[in-house]
Protein backbone atom coordinates (compact mmCIF):
# COMPACT_ATOMS: atom_id res chain seq x y z
CA UNK A 1 0.00 0.00 0.00
CA UNK A 2 1.32 3.45 -0.91
CA UNK A 3 2.09 6.10 1.67
CA UNK A 4 -0.98 8.10 0.59
CA UNK A 5 -3.40 5.27 1.27
CA UNK A 6 -1.68 4.52 4.55
CA UNK A 7 -2.01 8.17 5.58
CA UNK A 8 -5.74 8.26 4.73
CA UNK A 9 -6.57 4.95 6.41
CA UNK A 10 -4.43 5.77 9.43
CA UNK A 11 -6.32 9.07 9.91
CA UNK A 12 -9.76 7.47 9.47
CA UNK A 13 -9.11 4.46 11.71
CA UNK A 14 -7.30 6.44 14.42
CA UNK A 15 -10.06 9.08 14.46
CA UNK A 16 -12.71 6.37 14.87
CA UNK A 17 -10.70 4.69 17.64
CA UNK A 18 -10.29 8.01 19.43
CA UNK A 19 -14.03 8.69 19.09
CA UNK A 20 -14.86 5.26 20.48
CA UNK A 21 -12.39 5.62 23.33
CA UNK A 22 -13.67 9.04 24.38
CA UNK A 23 -17.37 8.30 23.87
CA UNK A 24 -17.96 5.03 25.70
CA UNK A 25 -20.85 6.80 27.44
CA UNK A 26 -22.65 6.76 24.07
CA UNK A 27 -21.88 3.05 23.67
CA UNK A 28 -23.31 2.26 27.13
CA UNK A 29 -26.37 4.44 26.51
CA UNK A 30 -27.19 2.09 23.60
CA UNK A 31 -26.03 -1.12 25.30
CA UNK A 32 -26.38 -0.75 29.08
CA UNK A 33 -24.64 -3.29 31.29
CA UNK A 34 -24.84 -4.07 34.99
CA UNK A 35 -21.99 -5.01 37.25
CA UNK A 36 -18.97 -3.56 38.98
CA UNK A 37 -15.31 -3.17 38.06
CA UNK A 38 -12.71 -2.21 40.67
CA UNK A 39 -15.59 -1.42 43.00
CA UNK A 40 -17.25 1.10 40.64
CA UNK A 41 -20.30 0.58 38.38
CA UNK A 42 -18.97 -0.51 34.97
CA UNK A 43 -20.91 2.17 33.09
CA UNK A 44 -19.15 4.82 35.20
CA UNK A 45 -15.56 3.68 35.50
CA UNK A 46 -14.93 2.13 32.07
CA UNK A 47 -15.65 5.40 30.16
CA UNK A 48 -13.38 7.25 32.62
CA UNK A 49 -10.53 4.73 32.28
CA UNK A 50 -10.94 4.53 28.52
CA UNK A 51 -11.06 8.34 28.30
CA UNK A 52 -7.71 8.51 30.08
CA UNK A 53 -5.58 5.40 29.58
CA UNK A 54 -7.29 4.31 26.36
CA UNK A 55 -6.61 7.71 24.81
CA UNK A 56 -3.07 7.69 26.23
CA UNK A 57 -2.30 4.36 24.53
CA UNK A 58 -3.84 5.61 21.27
CA UNK A 59 -1.76 8.82 21.22
CA UNK A 60 1.41 6.78 21.70
CA UNK A 61 0.41 4.51 18.78
CA UNK A 62 -0.72 7.49 16.67
CA UNK A 63 2.59 9.28 17.26
CA UNK A 64 4.64 6.27 16.19
CA UNK A 65 2.58 5.52 13.06
CA UNK A 66 2.40 9.23 12.13
CA UNK A 67 6.20 9.52 12.24
CA UNK A 68 6.51 6.32 10.20
CA UNK A 69 4.11 7.61 7.51
CA UNK A 70 6.04 10.91 7.30
CA UNK A 71 9.17 8.90 6.54
CA UNK A 72 7.35 6.87 3.88
CA UNK A 73 6.04 10.01 2.19
CA UNK A 74 9.57 11.40 2.17
CA UNK A 75 10.83 8.14 0.66
CA UNK A 76 8.18 8.20 -2.08
CA UNK A 77 9.03 11.82 -2.81
CA UNK A 78 12.64 10.85 -3.39
CA UNK A 79 11.62 7.94 -5.63
CA UNK A 80 9.28 10.19 -7.63
CA UNK A 81 12.06 12.76 -8.03
CA UNK A 82 14.37 10.03 -9.38
CA UNK A 83 11.91 8.93 -12.06
CA UNK A 84 11.09 12.47 -13.13
CA UNK A 85 7.85 12.74 -11.17
CA UNK A 86 4.83 14.81 -11.91
CA UNK A 87 4.41 18.55 -11.49
CA UNK A 88 6.48 19.76 -8.56
CA UNK A 89 4.53 21.57 -5.85
Amino acid at each position, binding site marked *: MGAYKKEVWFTIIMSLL*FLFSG*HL*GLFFSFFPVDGYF*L*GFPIMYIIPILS*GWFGVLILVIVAGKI*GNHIDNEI*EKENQENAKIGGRGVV
Partner: protein
Amino acid sequence: MENQVWQLSNPLLGIIVVFITFVVFYVVAYLSNRASTSVQDLYATKGGVGPITNGLAMASTYMSLATFLGVTALILRLQIPFVMLWIQFILAIPLITIIYGTSLRRMGAYSPTHFVRERYGKEASIIAALWMILVSIMYALGQMIGIAVTFETLLGIPYMTGLFVGGILIVGYVTIGGMSGATNNAAIQMVIMALMFIVPLGAIMKAMGGTGWFFPPLFYADMIPAMLEALPTFFDYKYPAKWYFALIPALTIGSLGLPHLAMRVYTSSSLKTARSAMIWFALALGLVFSATYAMGFSGVFFEYTTGIPIAPGDADKLTIILNLAYNPEWVTALVIAGAISAGLSTLSGNLLAIGALISQDIVTTLKPDLTNKAKVRLGYISIALGGLAAVLLAIKPPAFLIVSILWAFGLAGATNASLIIMGVWWKKANRFGAICASTISGIVYVVVSPFVFPKIVISGHALTDSMGLSGGMLAVPLSFIILIVVSSITNRIPSLMSKEAITENDGLVERIHGWSDINPQRYNSTFGALFITSISAVVFIWSMMPWAF
Protein backbone atom coordinates in the same frame (compact mmCIF):
# COMPACT_ATOMS: atom_id res chain seq x y z
CA MET B 1 -31.11 24.16 57.47
CA GLU B 2 -30.00 27.68 56.59
CA ASN B 3 -27.66 28.15 53.69
CA GLN B 4 -24.12 28.78 54.83
CA VAL B 5 -21.92 31.61 53.54
CA TRP B 6 -18.88 30.00 51.95
CA GLN B 7 -16.00 32.48 52.10
CA LEU B 8 -12.49 32.72 53.53
CA SER B 9 -12.73 34.21 57.03
CA ASN B 10 -9.41 35.90 56.33
CA PRO B 11 -9.54 37.19 52.71
CA LEU B 12 -6.08 38.77 53.11
CA LEU B 13 -4.58 35.27 53.07
CA GLY B 14 -6.15 34.59 49.69
CA ILE B 15 -5.14 37.98 48.32
CA ILE B 16 -1.49 37.41 49.33
CA VAL B 17 -1.38 33.96 47.68
CA VAL B 18 -3.02 35.25 44.48
CA PHE B 19 -0.61 38.25 44.46
CA ILE B 20 2.39 35.91 44.73
CA THR B 21 1.14 33.75 41.84
CA PHE B 22 0.71 36.85 39.67
CA VAL B 23 4.29 37.94 40.48
CA VAL B 24 5.55 34.49 39.43
CA PHE B 25 3.62 34.69 36.12
CA TYR B 26 4.99 38.17 35.39
CA VAL B 27 8.57 37.08 36.06
CA VAL B 28 8.16 34.03 33.83
CA ALA B 29 6.59 36.16 31.08
CA TYR B 30 9.43 38.67 31.34
CA LEU B 31 12.16 36.01 31.27
CA SER B 32 10.49 34.14 28.42
CA ASN B 33 10.21 37.20 26.24
CA ARG B 34 12.56 36.62 23.39
CA ALA B 35 11.95 40.09 21.99
CA SER B 36 9.43 38.99 19.37
CA THR B 37 10.60 40.43 16.08
CA SER B 38 8.02 38.80 13.83
CA VAL B 39 4.44 37.65 14.05
CA GLN B 40 5.62 34.04 13.95
CA ASP B 41 7.62 34.70 17.17
CA LEU B 42 4.61 36.30 18.80
CA TYR B 43 2.07 33.60 17.99
CA ALA B 44 4.14 30.47 17.46
CA THR B 45 7.33 31.07 19.51
CA LYS B 46 9.50 30.45 16.45
CA GLY B 47 8.09 26.91 16.63
CA GLY B 48 10.62 26.02 19.30
CA VAL B 49 8.72 24.47 22.19
CA GLY B 50 9.67 20.98 23.43
CA PRO B 51 7.14 18.17 23.93
CA ILE B 52 6.81 18.23 27.74
CA THR B 53 6.37 22.02 28.02
CA ASN B 54 4.03 22.05 25.05
CA GLY B 55 2.01 19.03 26.22
CA LEU B 56 1.52 20.60 29.65
CA ALA B 57 0.73 23.98 28.06
CA MET B 58 -1.84 22.29 25.80
CA ALA B 59 -3.53 20.71 28.81
CA SER B 60 -3.35 23.94 30.79
CA THR B 61 -4.79 26.08 27.99
CA TYR B 62 -7.59 23.59 27.61
CA MET B 63 -8.37 23.23 31.31
CA SER B 64 -10.11 26.48 31.96
CA LEU B 65 -11.44 27.96 35.15
CA ALA B 66 -14.45 25.79 34.41
CA THR B 67 -12.52 22.74 35.63
CA PHE B 68 -12.29 24.26 39.09
CA LEU B 69 -15.67 25.94 39.21
CA GLY B 70 -18.31 25.13 36.60
CA VAL B 71 -17.64 21.43 35.97
CA THR B 72 -17.95 20.26 39.53
CA ALA B 73 -21.11 22.41 39.80
CA LEU B 74 -22.67 20.68 36.82
CA ILE B 75 -21.64 17.25 38.12
CA LEU B 76 -23.44 18.26 41.33
CA ARG B 77 -26.52 19.14 39.28
CA LEU B 78 -26.48 16.57 36.45
CA GLN B 79 -24.17 13.86 37.83
CA ILE B 80 -23.23 11.15 35.31
CA PRO B 81 -24.33 12.80 32.03
CA PHE B 82 -21.96 15.66 32.72
CA VAL B 83 -19.08 13.31 33.56
CA MET B 84 -19.64 11.61 30.18
CA LEU B 85 -19.81 15.01 28.51
CA TRP B 86 -16.49 16.03 30.04
CA ILE B 87 -14.58 12.80 29.30
CA GLN B 88 -14.64 13.39 25.52
CA PHE B 89 -12.87 16.76 25.83
CA ILE B 90 -9.58 14.89 26.07
CA LEU B 91 -9.95 14.03 22.37
CA ALA B 92 -9.43 17.60 21.18
CA ILE B 93 -5.63 17.84 20.87
CA PRO B 94 -5.10 14.23 19.64
CA LEU B 95 -7.78 14.71 16.94
CA ILE B 96 -6.50 18.16 15.96
CA THR B 97 -2.97 16.76 15.70
CA ILE B 98 -3.77 13.73 13.55
CA ILE B 99 -6.51 15.27 11.40
CA TYR B 100 -4.95 18.62 10.52
CA GLY B 101 -2.47 19.91 13.12
CA THR B 102 0.66 18.38 11.66
CA SER B 103 -0.40 19.46 8.15
CA LEU B 104 -0.87 23.05 9.22
CA ARG B 105 2.40 22.90 11.21
CA ARG B 106 4.12 21.74 8.02
CA MET B 107 2.60 24.68 6.17
CA GLY B 108 3.94 27.10 8.78
CA ALA B 109 0.48 28.38 9.77
CA TYR B 110 0.22 30.37 12.98
CA SER B 111 -3.59 30.20 13.19
CA PRO B 112 -6.29 28.04 11.55
CA THR B 113 -7.52 31.15 9.74
CA HIS B 114 -4.08 31.56 8.17
CA PHE B 115 -4.73 28.20 6.52
CA VAL B 116 -8.28 29.24 5.52
CA ARG B 117 -6.82 32.33 3.81
CA GLU B 118 -4.25 30.34 1.85
CA ARG B 119 -6.76 27.64 0.96
CA TYR B 120 -9.97 29.58 0.28
CA GLY B 121 -8.89 33.20 -0.18
CA LYS B 122 -9.42 36.52 1.57
CA GLU B 123 -13.21 36.66 1.75
CA ALA B 124 -13.58 33.22 3.33
CA SER B 125 -10.78 33.89 5.80
CA ILE B 126 -12.32 37.18 6.98
CA ILE B 127 -15.70 35.48 7.52
CA ALA B 128 -14.01 32.62 9.38
CA ALA B 129 -11.91 35.10 11.41
CA LEU B 130 -14.99 37.08 12.46
CA TRP B 131 -16.67 33.89 13.70
CA MET B 132 -13.48 32.82 15.47
CA ILE B 133 -13.26 36.20 17.22
CA LEU B 134 -16.82 35.66 18.50
CA VAL B 135 -15.88 32.13 19.61
CA SER B 136 -12.73 33.36 21.37
CA ILE B 137 -14.51 36.26 23.06
CA MET B 138 -17.32 33.98 24.32
CA TYR B 139 -14.64 31.64 25.66
CA ALA B 140 -12.58 34.49 27.17
CA LEU B 141 -15.71 36.06 28.61
CA GLY B 142 -16.43 32.94 30.66
CA GLN B 143 -12.90 33.00 32.09
CA MET B 144 -12.98 36.74 32.81
CA ILE B 145 -16.32 36.48 34.63
CA GLY B 146 -15.03 33.44 36.52
CA ILE B 147 -11.92 35.27 37.70
CA ALA B 148 -13.91 38.32 38.81
CA VAL B 149 -16.53 36.14 40.55
CA THR B 150 -13.73 34.23 42.30
CA PHE B 151 -12.26 37.51 43.53
CA GLU B 152 -15.69 38.71 44.63
CA THR B 153 -17.16 35.69 46.34
CA LEU B 154 -14.06 34.17 47.82
CA LEU B 155 -11.80 37.09 48.58
CA GLY B 156 -14.40 39.80 49.15
CA ILE B 157 -13.06 42.06 46.35
CA PRO B 158 -15.94 43.89 44.57
CA TYR B 159 -16.83 42.37 41.17
CA MET B 160 -15.98 45.48 39.12
CA THR B 161 -12.64 46.00 40.89
CA GLY B 162 -11.74 42.33 40.42
CA LEU B 163 -12.74 42.47 36.79
CA PHE B 164 -10.69 45.53 35.88
CA VAL B 165 -7.65 44.77 38.05
CA GLY B 166 -7.65 41.10 36.98
CA GLY B 167 -8.23 42.03 33.33
CA ILE B 168 -5.38 44.56 33.26
CA LEU B 169 -2.97 42.16 35.00
CA ILE B 170 -3.76 39.34 32.57
CA VAL B 171 -3.54 41.48 29.44
CA GLY B 172 -0.27 42.83 30.83
CA TYR B 173 1.44 39.51 31.19
CA VAL B 174 0.21 38.11 27.87
CA THR B 175 1.43 41.26 26.12
CA ILE B 176 4.81 41.15 27.87
CA GLY B 177 5.47 37.50 27.16
CA GLY B 178 3.67 36.77 23.86
CA MET B 179 3.20 33.08 23.03
CA SER B 180 6.58 32.20 24.51
CA GLY B 181 5.70 33.61 27.93
CA ALA B 182 2.16 32.27 27.76
CA THR B 183 3.45 28.77 26.92
CA ASN B 184 5.96 28.65 29.78
CA ASN B 185 3.39 30.13 32.15
CA ALA B 186 0.76 27.67 30.96
CA ALA B 187 3.10 24.75 31.69
CA ILE B 188 3.74 26.11 35.21
CA GLN B 189 0.02 26.76 35.68
CA MET B 190 -0.70 23.14 34.75
CA VAL B 191 1.54 21.93 37.58
CA ILE B 192 -0.01 24.45 40.02
CA MET B 193 -3.51 23.39 38.99
CA ALA B 194 -2.79 19.68 39.34
CA LEU B 195 -1.22 20.13 42.79
CA MET B 196 -3.81 22.60 44.09
CA PHE B 197 -6.64 20.41 42.92
CA ILE B 198 -5.52 16.85 43.63
CA VAL B 199 -3.58 17.14 46.92
CA PRO B 200 -6.39 19.00 48.78
CA LEU B 201 -8.87 16.51 47.27
CA GLY B 202 -6.90 13.69 48.90
CA ALA B 203 -7.24 15.44 52.27
CA ILE B 204 -10.98 15.98 51.70
CA MET B 205 -11.49 12.29 50.87
CA LYS B 206 -9.53 11.23 53.92
CA ALA B 207 -11.68 13.48 56.13
CA MET B 208 -14.81 11.96 54.55
CA GLY B 209 -13.58 8.50 55.53
CA GLY B 210 -12.27 7.37 52.13
CA THR B 211 -9.32 5.00 52.25
CA GLY B 212 -8.04 5.80 48.75
CA TRP B 213 -7.01 9.37 49.63
CA PHE B 214 -3.42 8.75 48.44
CA PHE B 215 -4.63 8.68 44.79
CA PRO B 216 -7.94 10.54 44.74
CA PRO B 217 -8.58 10.53 40.95
CA LEU B 218 -9.40 6.79 40.91
CA PHE B 219 -9.37 5.34 44.44
CA TYR B 220 -12.77 6.16 45.92
CA ALA B 221 -14.63 2.92 45.26
CA ASP B 222 -15.06 2.33 49.01
CA MET B 223 -17.33 5.40 49.14
CA ILE B 224 -19.70 3.95 46.48
CA PRO B 225 -22.01 1.96 48.83
CA ALA B 226 -22.59 5.02 51.03
CA MET B 227 -23.25 7.13 47.94
CA LEU B 228 -25.76 4.64 46.53
CA GLU B 229 -27.52 4.52 49.89
CA ALA B 230 -27.73 8.33 50.05
CA LEU B 231 -28.49 8.90 46.34
CA PRO B 232 -29.41 5.67 44.46
CA THR B 233 -29.75 7.50 41.12
CA PHE B 234 -26.21 8.95 41.08
CA PHE B 235 -24.89 6.54 38.46
CA ASP B 236 -27.98 6.67 36.19
CA TYR B 237 -27.40 7.89 32.62
CA LYS B 238 -30.69 9.87 32.83
CA TYR B 239 -30.70 11.13 29.19
CA PRO B 240 -31.45 9.30 25.92
CA ALA B 241 -28.67 7.98 23.65
CA LYS B 242 -29.28 10.88 21.29
CA TRP B 243 -28.02 13.29 23.95
CA TYR B 244 -24.76 11.35 24.24
CA PHE B 245 -24.45 11.24 20.45
CA ALA B 246 -24.93 15.04 20.20
CA LEU B 247 -21.68 15.45 22.15
CA ILE B 248 -19.75 14.33 19.03
CA PRO B 249 -20.81 17.06 16.55
CA ALA B 250 -21.24 19.83 19.13
CA LEU B 251 -18.22 19.35 21.36
CA THR B 252 -15.76 16.87 19.84
CA ILE B 253 -15.92 18.28 16.29
CA GLY B 254 -16.50 21.72 17.79
CA SER B 255 -13.17 21.57 19.59
CA LEU B 256 -11.46 21.00 16.22
CA GLY B 257 -12.49 24.54 15.27
CA LEU B 258 -11.13 26.27 18.38
CA PRO B 259 -8.25 28.51 17.33
CA HIS B 260 -6.40 28.67 20.65
CA LEU B 261 -6.10 24.87 20.84
CA ALA B 262 -4.88 24.42 17.28
CA MET B 263 -2.30 27.17 17.81
CA ARG B 264 -0.64 25.06 20.49
CA VAL B 265 0.21 22.38 17.88
CA TYR B 266 2.01 24.95 15.72
CA THR B 267 4.34 25.99 18.54
CA SER B 268 6.04 22.56 18.52
CA SER B 269 9.67 22.46 17.43
CA SER B 270 8.94 19.65 14.93
CA LEU B 271 6.20 17.28 13.82
CA LYS B 272 7.70 14.59 16.04
CA THR B 273 7.60 16.82 19.13
CA ALA B 274 4.00 17.82 18.26
CA ARG B 275 3.11 14.12 18.36
CA SER B 276 5.06 13.53 21.57
CA ALA B 277 3.32 16.52 23.17
CA MET B 278 0.01 14.65 22.71
CA ILE B 279 1.24 12.02 25.17
CA TRP B 280 1.98 14.55 27.91
CA PHE B 281 -1.29 16.28 27.14
CA ALA B 282 -3.31 13.06 27.55
CA LEU B 283 -1.44 12.05 30.70
CA ALA B 284 -1.85 15.43 32.45
CA LEU B 285 -5.38 16.10 31.30
CA GLY B 286 -6.60 12.58 32.12
CA LEU B 287 -5.19 12.94 35.63
CA VAL B 288 -6.90 16.28 36.36
CA PHE B 289 -10.14 15.33 34.59
CA SER B 290 -10.40 12.13 36.65
CA ALA B 291 -9.75 14.19 39.78
CA THR B 292 -12.55 16.55 38.67
CA TYR B 293 -15.02 13.66 38.52
CA ALA B 294 -13.82 12.57 41.96
CA MET B 295 -14.32 16.15 43.24
CA GLY B 296 -17.85 16.20 41.77
CA PHE B 297 -18.53 12.82 43.34
CA SER B 298 -17.23 14.08 46.69
CA GLY B 299 -19.46 17.16 46.41
CA VAL B 300 -22.58 15.06 45.91
CA PHE B 301 -21.38 12.69 48.64
CA PHE B 302 -20.89 15.66 51.00
CA GLU B 303 -24.33 17.11 50.30
CA TYR B 304 -26.26 13.85 50.59
CA THR B 305 -24.39 12.22 53.49
CA THR B 306 -23.94 15.27 55.73
CA GLY B 307 -27.33 16.82 54.94
CA ILE B 308 -25.69 20.24 54.46
CA PRO B 309 -27.35 21.66 51.33
CA ILE B 310 -25.34 23.58 48.74
CA ALA B 311 -27.51 26.43 47.44
CA PRO B 312 -27.92 26.56 43.61
CA GLY B 313 -26.06 29.90 43.57
CA ASP B 314 -23.13 28.31 45.40
CA ALA B 315 -22.82 25.26 43.13
CA ASP B 316 -19.99 26.87 41.14
CA LYS B 317 -17.97 27.08 44.36
CA LEU B 318 -18.18 23.37 45.14
CA THR B 319 -14.40 22.80 45.02
CA ILE B 320 -13.83 25.72 47.39
CA ILE B 321 -16.73 24.68 49.65
CA LEU B 322 -15.27 21.20 50.16
CA ASN B 323 -11.90 22.75 50.99
CA LEU B 324 -13.45 25.21 53.43
CA ALA B 325 -15.37 22.33 55.05
CA TYR B 326 -12.47 19.91 55.44
CA ASN B 327 -9.12 21.71 54.98
CA PRO B 328 -7.34 24.62 56.72
CA GLU B 329 -7.89 28.09 55.26
CA TRP B 330 -4.37 28.38 53.85
CA VAL B 331 -5.08 25.30 51.72
CA THR B 332 -8.26 26.92 50.40
CA ALA B 333 -6.21 30.03 49.55
CA LEU B 334 -3.86 27.85 47.48
CA VAL B 335 -6.85 26.22 45.75
CA ILE B 336 -8.15 29.69 44.85
CA ALA B 337 -4.71 30.46 43.37
CA GLY B 338 -5.00 27.23 41.36
CA ALA B 339 -8.44 28.27 40.08
CA ILE B 340 -7.13 31.69 39.07
CA SER B 341 -4.19 29.97 37.31
CA ALA B 342 -6.63 27.84 35.34
CA GLY B 343 -8.52 30.93 34.21
CA LEU B 344 -5.31 32.78 33.34
CA SER B 345 -3.81 30.05 31.18
CA THR B 346 -6.95 29.67 29.09
CA LEU B 347 -7.50 33.40 28.88
CA SER B 348 -3.95 33.99 27.68
CA GLY B 349 -4.52 31.41 24.92
CA ASN B 350 -7.79 33.12 23.97
CA LEU B 351 -6.20 36.58 23.91
CA LEU B 352 -3.32 35.39 21.72
CA ALA B 353 -5.85 33.83 19.35
CA ILE B 354 -7.87 37.07 19.25
CA GLY B 355 -4.63 39.01 18.64
CA ALA B 356 -3.69 36.75 15.73
CA LEU B 357 -7.21 36.90 14.30
CA ILE B 358 -7.51 40.69 14.37
CA SER B 359 -3.97 41.61 13.36
CA GLN B 360 -3.08 38.81 10.96
CA ASP B 361 -6.30 37.42 9.61
CA ILE B 362 -8.23 40.65 9.19
CA VAL B 363 -6.01 43.77 9.13
CA THR B 364 -3.00 42.20 7.38
CA THR B 365 -5.27 40.43 4.91
CA LEU B 366 -6.80 43.76 3.97
CA LYS B 367 -3.48 45.65 4.13
CA PRO B 368 -0.77 43.14 3.19
CA ASP B 369 1.99 45.74 2.68
CA LEU B 370 2.43 46.53 6.41
CA THR B 371 6.01 46.39 7.71
CA ASN B 372 7.03 43.57 10.01
CA LYS B 373 7.45 46.01 12.91
CA ALA B 374 3.96 47.40 12.34
CA LYS B 375 2.54 43.86 12.25
CA VAL B 376 4.11 42.98 15.64
CA ARG B 377 2.90 46.27 17.14
CA LEU B 378 -0.56 45.62 15.73
CA GLY B 379 -0.43 42.14 17.30
CA TYR B 380 0.21 43.59 20.76
CA ILE B 381 -2.55 46.18 20.33
CA SER B 382 -4.97 43.46 19.18
CA ILE B 383 -4.22 41.29 22.23
CA ALA B 384 -4.95 44.28 24.48
CA LEU B 385 -8.14 45.07 22.55
CA GLY B 386 -9.33 41.47 22.89
CA GLY B 387 -8.77 41.63 26.64
CA LEU B 388 -10.55 44.96 26.84
CA ALA B 389 -13.54 43.58 24.89
CA ALA B 390 -13.82 40.61 27.26
CA VAL B 391 -13.61 42.93 30.30
CA LEU B 392 -16.26 45.29 28.91
CA LEU B 393 -18.61 42.42 28.02
CA ALA B 394 -18.14 41.00 31.51
CA ILE B 395 -19.35 44.24 33.15
CA LYS B 396 -22.91 43.00 32.73
CA PRO B 397 -22.30 39.25 32.74
CA PRO B 398 -24.83 36.88 31.22
CA ALA B 399 -26.40 34.44 33.65
CA PHE B 400 -24.37 31.56 32.22
CA LEU B 401 -20.66 30.98 32.82
CA ILE B 402 -19.59 27.51 31.75
CA VAL B 403 -22.56 27.38 29.40
CA SER B 404 -21.10 30.24 27.33
CA ILE B 405 -17.85 28.29 26.99
CA LEU B 406 -19.59 25.10 25.87
CA TRP B 407 -21.78 27.08 23.48
CA ALA B 408 -18.61 28.46 21.86
CA PHE B 409 -17.52 24.90 20.94
CA GLY B 410 -20.61 24.34 18.81
CA LEU B 411 -20.15 27.68 17.07
CA ALA B 412 -16.53 26.81 16.27
CA GLY B 413 -17.71 23.46 14.88
CA ALA B 414 -20.44 25.02 12.72
CA THR B 415 -18.28 27.82 11.29
CA ASN B 416 -14.71 26.52 11.12
CA ALA B 417 -14.26 22.79 11.61
CA SER B 418 -15.66 21.77 8.21
CA LEU B 419 -13.56 24.40 6.40
CA ILE B 420 -10.35 23.17 7.97
CA ILE B 421 -11.03 19.41 7.84
CA MET B 422 -12.34 19.36 4.26
CA GLY B 423 -9.75 21.94 3.19
CA VAL B 424 -6.94 19.67 4.33
CA TRP B 425 -8.38 16.38 3.03
CA TRP B 426 -10.44 17.25 -0.06
CA LYS B 427 -8.97 19.25 -2.94
CA LYS B 428 -12.41 19.91 -4.42
CA ALA B 429 -13.47 22.03 -1.43
CA ASN B 430 -13.53 25.59 -2.75
CA ARG B 431 -14.06 29.13 -1.52
CA PHE B 432 -17.75 29.27 -2.54
CA GLY B 433 -18.48 26.18 -0.48
CA ALA B 434 -16.42 27.53 2.43
CA ILE B 435 -18.09 30.96 2.46
CA CYS B 436 -21.62 29.48 2.25
CA ALA B 437 -20.92 26.78 4.86
CA SER B 438 -19.39 29.15 7.41
CA THR B 439 -21.99 31.89 6.95
CA ILE B 440 -25.18 29.81 6.77
CA SER B 441 -24.29 27.25 9.45
CA GLY B 442 -23.04 29.98 11.79
CA ILE B 443 -26.26 31.95 11.42
CA VAL B 444 -28.38 28.80 11.87
CA TYR B 445 -26.44 27.90 15.03
CA VAL B 446 -26.91 31.39 16.49
CA VAL B 447 -30.63 31.49 15.57
CA VAL B 448 -31.45 28.14 17.24
CA SER B 449 -29.57 29.04 20.43
CA PRO B 450 -31.96 30.09 23.21
CA PHE B 451 -29.99 33.32 23.83
CA VAL B 452 -31.18 35.01 20.63
CA PHE B 453 -34.68 33.70 19.93
CA PRO B 454 -35.77 31.79 23.05
CA LYS B 455 -38.72 30.26 21.19
CA ILE B 456 -36.68 28.87 18.28
CA VAL B 457 -34.87 25.91 19.81
CA ILE B 458 -34.19 22.34 18.71
CA SER B 459 -34.58 20.02 21.69
CA GLY B 460 -36.78 22.06 24.05
CA HIS B 461 -34.55 20.93 26.94
CA ALA B 462 -33.17 24.17 28.38
CA LEU B 463 -29.67 23.03 29.33
CA THR B 464 -29.15 20.99 26.15
CA ASP B 465 -30.14 23.96 23.99
CA SER B 466 -28.12 26.52 25.94
CA MET B 467 -24.97 24.37 25.93
CA GLY B 468 -25.30 24.23 22.13
CA LEU B 469 -25.61 20.42 22.01
CA SER B 470 -28.82 20.40 19.96
CA GLY B 471 -27.72 23.40 17.86
CA GLY B 472 -24.37 21.72 17.17
CA MET B 473 -26.04 18.47 16.13
CA LEU B 474 -28.04 20.51 13.60
CA ALA B 475 -25.51 23.10 12.38
CA VAL B 476 -22.23 21.14 12.31
CA PRO B 477 -23.42 18.45 9.83
CA LEU B 478 -25.21 21.19 7.89
CA SER B 479 -21.86 22.95 7.51
CA PHE B 480 -20.27 19.81 5.98
CA ILE B 481 -23.25 19.29 3.64
CA ILE B 482 -23.19 22.90 2.38
CA LEU B 483 -19.42 22.91 1.90
CA ILE B 484 -19.44 19.70 -0.14
CA VAL B 485 -22.59 20.39 -2.18
CA VAL B 486 -21.77 24.03 -3.04
CA SER B 487 -18.15 23.15 -3.89
CA SER B 488 -19.27 20.27 -6.12
CA ILE B 489 -21.73 22.52 -8.01
CA THR B 490 -19.42 25.53 -8.41
CA ASN B 491 -16.50 23.34 -9.51
CA ARG B 492 -18.60 22.48 -12.59
CA ILE B 493 -19.00 26.14 -13.58
CA PRO B 494 -15.80 27.03 -15.49
CA SER B 495 -16.35 30.79 -15.22
CA LEU B 496 -16.15 30.56 -11.42
CA MET B 497 -13.00 28.45 -11.08
CA SER B 498 -9.78 29.42 -12.87
CA LYS B 499 -7.32 26.65 -13.73
CA GLU B 500 -4.49 28.52 -12.01
CA ALA B 501 -6.44 28.73 -8.76
CA ILE B 502 -7.22 24.98 -8.89
CA THR B 503 -3.56 24.08 -9.51
CA GLU B 504 -2.42 26.38 -6.73
CA ASN B 505 -4.92 24.84 -4.29
CA ASP B 506 -3.98 21.30 -5.29
CA GLY B 507 -0.34 22.17 -4.74
CA LEU B 508 -1.08 23.56 -1.28
CA VAL B 509 -3.01 20.44 -0.22
CA GLU B 510 -0.21 18.15 -1.44
CA ARG B 511 2.49 20.28 0.19
CA ILE B 512 0.90 20.36 3.66
CA HIS B 513 0.73 16.56 3.62
CA GLY B 514 4.44 16.42 2.86
CA TRP B 515 4.35 15.66 -0.87
CA SER B 516 6.67 17.40 -3.28
CA ASP B 517 4.65 16.60 -6.40
CA ILE B 518 1.01 16.92 -7.48
CA ASN B 519 -0.94 13.72 -8.05
CA PRO B 520 -4.60 14.16 -9.14
CA GLN B 521 -5.44 10.80 -7.54
CA ARG B 522 -4.65 12.06 -4.05
CA TYR B 523 -7.11 13.86 -1.67
CA ASN B 524 -9.81 13.83 -4.34
CA SER B 525 -12.20 11.10 -3.23
CA THR B 526 -15.75 11.56 -4.52
CA PHE B 527 -16.84 8.53 -2.52
CA GLY B 528 -15.44 10.09 0.66
CA ALA B 529 -17.33 13.34 0.02
CA LEU B 530 -20.56 11.43 -0.69
CA PHE B 531 -20.10 9.34 2.43
CA ILE B 532 -19.57 12.39 4.65
CA THR B 533 -22.58 14.13 3.07
CA SER B 534 -24.80 11.07 3.69
CA ILE B 535 -23.72 10.69 7.34
CA SER B 536 -24.16 14.44 7.87
CA ALA B 537 -27.64 14.33 6.33
CA VAL B 538 -28.68 11.50 8.67
CA VAL B 539 -27.37 13.38 11.74
CA PHE B 540 -28.99 16.63 10.54
CA ILE B 541 -32.41 14.97 10.16
CA TRP B 542 -32.03 13.08 13.45
CA SER B 543 -31.33 16.37 15.27
CA MET B 544 -34.74 17.70 14.22
CA MET B 545 -36.67 14.64 15.38
CA PRO B 546 -38.15 14.65 18.92
CA TRP B 547 -35.52 14.40 21.67
CA ALA B 548 -37.69 12.47 24.17
CA PHE B 549 -36.16 13.54 27.49
